[in-house]
């Protein structure tokens, strides 16, 4: 067995069932010294932290939550390999810390019984004692430690209780011997394991046992056998299983029977279970999971969440807008007139400012979704949604990744790791970008605020603008359901997937975890604004600024502008207010005309007019076409491009508290003087953005998670086609209805 090590660095592995507070413990132990990365070749997050205890450095490895150490996927194989010290990128663990919830010790000890067979010292950290006691469960810690033969430490990581005791127990365990292997399995089974182990040199006994219990291609892959040896091994295993079945110990049932028998003996008399009272939270849960009342609450929760995003974000958005406006004004008055002035004021400040203003909405949405998830409510929502999802060939498990995609598709795609079936996972990944992510909010908000009348019904409880926004989210959802249905019947054919999920206990969301997620997303968004959007803003500005009108073309226009200015001057001296107003309008028109002529003449104008025939059926002009094209790397770019095109630094009337870009798009005109945007045009732009895959980062994460470019390519193609068709139908039908 492993001998006590006196090296200066220890590796401590954390394992446990999902929802046991393992990650909270990891966070409490490692504090800010955390690193996340990926194990090469698989999609398991590699979370490591550092602790210094008694002058010794501990490398803490947080492994994904699991119910069993039976590798069913390459991802689960990583956990087993780390624990057995079979990976090159993580040193073999000196101590394994098993995290178990006191309230369901029985099931948690199943995993502990497996950990005890790995030949490493094990320490059991017991969490959620308070919740267990509420349920009438009392655990005699000393007696349990005695029965299991390993240290057991009750902890409360959020309050920081028991951490020192845990560290001391780990220190002692690491300096001691590994526990003797348990004799859990029946005699016949152990004999077969011994016999098989003799034919497999250097393979840990635990893996030999697993091979005998259930077929696992991932373990076989790791043995480095050639095809003949592998076939021979399979034959030996098959023969052994038959012998075992005849002896009345069928695989794989023998494992659960034997382990739970061991758990039963270990907990007998140690865990006292009082009368489980029906508490208020149970009654609330019954309402929240009832198909009718639960669904109504779910709709209400989502409605409140999304309207809160709008109402709470309003004030900080106005501050940000005011801040960028002040900077823009300072630039345009301080710097000399010319390209540099225009680049900074009209390009960078207008472009980046137009996007950064949406930071409050995104942060609030992420925060609210994090609260819903941390509290345990999202698992209930997944349960409720299973009834609906199963009709589209998916299970309730796909709901949480899809819902988090309303905040951002990237964590959504990563959250699909919890879906076991490959086809279900791929289907979910392919429809995720149809969920309206927070980067689409800027587009929706801008156009809704500008063009959808602020009517309200039922004493202001229901607002037309809110309904329009809801409709945009629904467009994505309905299309996603249809796409899932089609995919599950064609490319990814398969029956209704399995749905098994634990319902975590309700708990107060940890503010640290919620704030951390908000900061992470805010940082991503701002660094995007500082790099891609910054660069695209400059490029768009350049394409729109150059080439300038030639002196010959500009001369008559400038002459007209000067005449208008003189007339205005004359009217002012005359003092007739009507004449002043008329002259001012004339001057404004001339200026608009010059700006329009310059834009049409620019590179962007030429490119835009070249693609105009393609976007005209959608009701768009060349400016919208060009801005949409520029937004393919990241969809929020359209807002910054519109900011540059309509140069919000200038001239927008200062009445009311409307944001400046909103006014700019409201007053945008076509060359013939008709307004650029009508309600059908605004809707058509919104539908296009609702359905289009304009996000390079999402496509990249789809590639990483699926390991092939095929899937992102399929997603991009089908979504672009759908977006075009959707926008076309919206504009054409909308125009018919309105005229």
């Amino acid at each position, binding site marked *: 067995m492993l001998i006590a090590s006196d090296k200066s660095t220890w590796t401590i592995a954390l394992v446990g069932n999902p929802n046991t507070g393992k990650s909270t413990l990891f966070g409490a132990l490692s504090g800010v010294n955390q690193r996340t990365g990926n194990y090469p070749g698989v999609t398991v997050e590699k979370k490591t932290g550092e602790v210094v205890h008694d002058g010794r450095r501990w490398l803490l490895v947080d492994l994904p939550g699991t119910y069993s150490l039976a590798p069913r996927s390459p991802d689960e194989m990583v956990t087993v390999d780390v624990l057995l010290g079979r990976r090159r990128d993580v040193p073999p663990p000196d101590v394994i810390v098993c995290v178990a919830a006191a309230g369901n010790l029985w099931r948690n000890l199943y995993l502990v019984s497996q950990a005890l067979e790995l030949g490493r010292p094990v320490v059991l950290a017991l969490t959620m004692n308070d919740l267990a006691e509420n349920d009438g469960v009392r655990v005699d810690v000393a007696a349990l430690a005695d029965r299991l033969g390993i240290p057991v430490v009750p902890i409360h990581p959020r309050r920081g209780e028991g951490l020192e005791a845990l560290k001391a127990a780990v220190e002692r365990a690491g300096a001691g011997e590994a526990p003797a292997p348990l004799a859990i399995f029946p005699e016949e089974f152990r004999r077969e394991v011994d016999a098989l182990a003799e034919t497999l040199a250097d393979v840990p006994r635990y893996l030999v046992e697993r091979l005998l219990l259930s077929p696992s291609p991932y373990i076989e892959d790791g043995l480095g056998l050639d095809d003949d040896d592998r076939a021979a091994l399979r034959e030996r295993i098959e023969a052994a299983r038959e012998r075992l079945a005849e002896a009345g110990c069928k695989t794989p049932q023998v494992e659960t029977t034997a382990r739970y028998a061991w758990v039963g003996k270990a907990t007998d008399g140690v865990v006292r279970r009082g009368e489980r009272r029906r508490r208020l939270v149970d009654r609330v849960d019954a309402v929240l999971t009832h198909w009718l009342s639960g669904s109504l609450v779910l709709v209400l929760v989502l409605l409140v969440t999304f309207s809160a995003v709008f109402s709470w974000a309003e004030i900080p958005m106005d501050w940000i807008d005011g801040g960028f406006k002040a900077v823009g004004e300072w630039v345009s008055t301080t710097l000399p007139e010319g390209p540099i002035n225009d680049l900074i004021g009209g390009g960078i400040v207008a472009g980046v400012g137009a996007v950064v203003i949406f930071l409050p909405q995104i942060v609030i949405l992420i925060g609210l979704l994090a609260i819903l998830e941390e509290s345990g409510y999202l698992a209930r929502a997944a349960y409720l949604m299973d009834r609906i999802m199963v009709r589209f060939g998916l299970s309730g498990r796909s709901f949480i990744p899809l819902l988090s995609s309303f905040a951002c598709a990237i964590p959504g795609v990563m959250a699909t790791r919890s879906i076991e079936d490959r086809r279900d996972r791929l289907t979910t990944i392919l429809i995720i970008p149809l969920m309206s992510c927070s980067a689409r909010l800027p587009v929706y908000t801008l156009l809704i605020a500008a063009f959808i009348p602020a009517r309200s019904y039922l004493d202001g409880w229901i607002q037309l603008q809110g309904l329009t926004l809801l409709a945009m989210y629904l467009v994505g959802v309905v299309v996603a359901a249809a796409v899932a249905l089609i995919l599950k019947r064609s490319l990814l054919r398969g029956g209704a997937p399995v749905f098994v999920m*634990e*319902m975590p206990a309700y708990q107060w969301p940890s503010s640290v975890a919620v704030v951390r997620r908000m900061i992470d997303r805010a940082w991503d968004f701002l660094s995007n604004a500082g790099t891609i959007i910054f660069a695209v803003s400059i490029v768009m500005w350049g394409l729109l600024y150059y080439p300038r009108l030639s002196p010959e073309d500009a001369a008559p226009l400038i002459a007209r502008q000067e005449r208008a200015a003189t007339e205005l001057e004359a009217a002012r001296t005359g003092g007739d207010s009507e004449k002043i107003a008329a002259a001012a309008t004339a001057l404004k028109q001339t200026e608009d005309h010059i700006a329009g002529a310059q834009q049409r003449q620019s590179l962007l104008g030429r490119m835009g007019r070249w693609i105009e025939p393609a976007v005209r059926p959608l009701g768009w002009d060349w400016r919208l076409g060009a801005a949409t094209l520029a937004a393919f790397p990241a969809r929020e770019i359209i807002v910054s491009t519109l900011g540059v095109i309509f140069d919000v630094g200038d001239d927008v009337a200062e009445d009311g508290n409307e944001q400046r870009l909103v006014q700019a798009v409201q007053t945008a005109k076509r060359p013939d003087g008709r307004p650029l945007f009508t309600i059908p045009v605004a809707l058509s732009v919104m539908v296009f953005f609702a359905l289009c895959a304009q996000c390079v980062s999402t496509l990249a994460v789809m590639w990483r998670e699926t390991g092939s470019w095929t899937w992102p390519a399929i997603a991009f193609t089908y979504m672009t086609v759908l977006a075009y068709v959707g926008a076309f139908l919206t504009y054409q039908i909308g125009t018919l209805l309105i005229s």
Partner: protein
Amino acid sequence: MIARMPAVGEDEIGEMVPLSLLQAGESGRVGDVVGNVDLVHRLREMGLCDGATVWMIQPGSPCIIGLDGHRLCFRCDDLARVFVQLPAAC
């Protein structure tokens, strides 16, 4: 209330019924889990093992059941069927 009934002893044989027939609040002991081998093994690992006491919290498909202090939701369909033994007395 059936839920308050003491758990049946090992020698008492109650009626074996599919878990999906339990009403909210009723409980039983897991007798047999049949279906897809992998799924059955997974359910057993999660504690749906012979002799475990389960009680129905939210019937339907999927259903929520209580099992040793935690709640498990799963869809009872052709992939896996769980049979439970009702307490003999009822």
